């Protein structure tokens, strides 16, 4: 059996990325269960993975099993268990360095920057198992408000406020606490998406916004530079400069430029379609992961 450890079910990208990974492994024929502290399942995105409580996992786990985890804090309590342990890296926070130093761990990365980071730190092989945007985000022709700006206030609210002051003719819509479907609905109707979390490891929402046809204006991020190409598919500026950079692309004279940035953003997001991710994972399962995962 394969198990994936989750710290909870809240609205955090890492939870969704982990469940997407589980869903795909199941689709590829592997037995897999999600493990949450109390057996609760997340209900803010669709999934078909069965969920069990951590206590049930601890009672059942054996040496034939494989255990995936992505939260560094899980490393210590999983260490004494008999199963194979696999670190599914979703961010290159320095907190992971003592974790990836454990030679008993197999290492997986969700994107190239994380793959390079772990390879450089450990000198060990790292498999990139990919990440994807849910199909519901892809723009499919809904009416789009060119002056509607979506943003997530959890990190960088002040940056968004500064942008609001500079972009007075625009309507700012906060995306907070929404389930995936409602979030996609909001993004598909917005013309802009502000990514205001400096140092974000990947920034899946910005990529989802590209899929939704938004013009993404972002602060510099870490792993997200894998897909952000400033001036080609997004606007990129330091936090203090973002309001000016964004407002410079407003107005009728810039309409063609905005359209071009949205088009390129959408094209970029297509590289992260679920079907493509599934093919990548299928190759990895047939290759380097074959010995790591449990097949029964």
């Amino acid at each position, binding site marked *: 059996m394969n198990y994936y450890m989750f710290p909870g079910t809240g609205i955090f990208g890492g939870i969704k990325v982990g469940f997407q990974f589980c869903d795909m492994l199941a689709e590829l024929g592997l037995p897999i269960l999600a493990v949450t502290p109390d057996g609760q399942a997340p209900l803010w995105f669709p999934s078909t993975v069965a969920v*069990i409580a951590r206590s049930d996992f601890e009672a059942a786990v054996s040496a034939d099993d494989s255990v995936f985890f992505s939260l560094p804090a899980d490393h210590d309590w999983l260490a004494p268990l008999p199963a194979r342990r696999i670190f599914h890296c979703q961010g290159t926070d320095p907190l992971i360095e003592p974790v990836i130093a454990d030679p008993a761990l197999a290492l997986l990365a969700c994107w190239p920057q994380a793959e390079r980071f772990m390879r450089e730190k450990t000198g060990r092989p790292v498999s990139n198992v990919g990440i994807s945007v849910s199909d519901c985000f892809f723009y499919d022709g809904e009416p789009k408000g060119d002056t509607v700006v979506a943003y997530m206030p959890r990190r960088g609210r002040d940056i968004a406020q500064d942008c609001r002051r500079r972009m007075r003719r625009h309507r700012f819509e906060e995306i907070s606490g929404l389930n995936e479907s409602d979030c996609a609905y909001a993004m598909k109707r917005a013309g802009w998406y502000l990514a205001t979390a400096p140092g974000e490891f990947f920034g899946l929402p910005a990529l989802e916004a590209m899929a939704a046809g938004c013009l993404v204006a972002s602060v510099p991020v870490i792993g997200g530079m894998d897909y952000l190409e400033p001036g080609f598919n997004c606007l990129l500026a330091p936090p203090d400069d973002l309001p000016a950079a964004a407002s410079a692309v407003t107005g009728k004279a810039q309409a063609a430029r905005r359209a071009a940035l949205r088009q390129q953003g959408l094209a970029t997001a297509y590289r992260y379609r679920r079907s493509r991710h599934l093919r990548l994972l299928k190759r990895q399962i047939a290759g380097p992961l074959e010995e790591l995962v449990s097949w029964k």
Partner: protein
Amino acid sequence: MEMTIVIPSRGLAALLTACLRLLHVALAEAGISDHRIVVVDNATPHPFASDRFGPQVEILRFDVPQSFSHACNAGVRRGAAQGCRHVFLLNNDVLLHPRAIAEMLAAKQAAKAAVSGARLVFPDDTIQHCGVRIGGPRPIPYHEHIHTPTPLVSRRLRTYQAVTGAAMIIDHALYDELGGLDECYPFAYEDVDFCLRARQKGHRITCAQAVDSVHFASMTPGRFRHEDESRAIFEARWAGRCTSDTEEGLYKC
């Protein structure tokens, strides 16, 4: 033994006779000769005579109405000798396609599943069941594509969170491991509960899509009397504990 078939029935003898006749055809088509058929007479007002359905069919009689779960579990205990590979729970109002059992076993093998359901249609050729989806914070199971004309629904094999117990083949070892259907359910949802518990053990659930069998559905008198009670038990047990299949069923934050 290859298979134990359990059919709970309260009355509906004529329908049950037709059900059994087609069951024999489907068993022969699947090449299953080593089997036992147990009809659980669940307090039929005029009890079924022991030879009513022929020598190959055993009758297990309850004088007082029992829950569907209890009837099934008792039937399985009666019929499943040591070494029985499969348990087949079948409703008395299901008319199996001749290839239904063969397809269910093939689907089960292809999907590496421990439980296989069957594609069922109403007499008007619309879908009654081709897999169960679950949506929402109150985990509401529903039959995917119900009332859609069957030619319009894909026959691609896939896995589900649950299938209906109206026609369900289960590994006997799993049935034993889980203690059968949970008898806390008066009538309804015990099949979905069983599938969800099986999934928590890491088993897969599939549904044979290749052929359609007819299911009249809910023919038993008083069928809906305990529905609300069963639903309340199901919700109390599974609320927030199973994932939502569909975007429509997502929790509205």
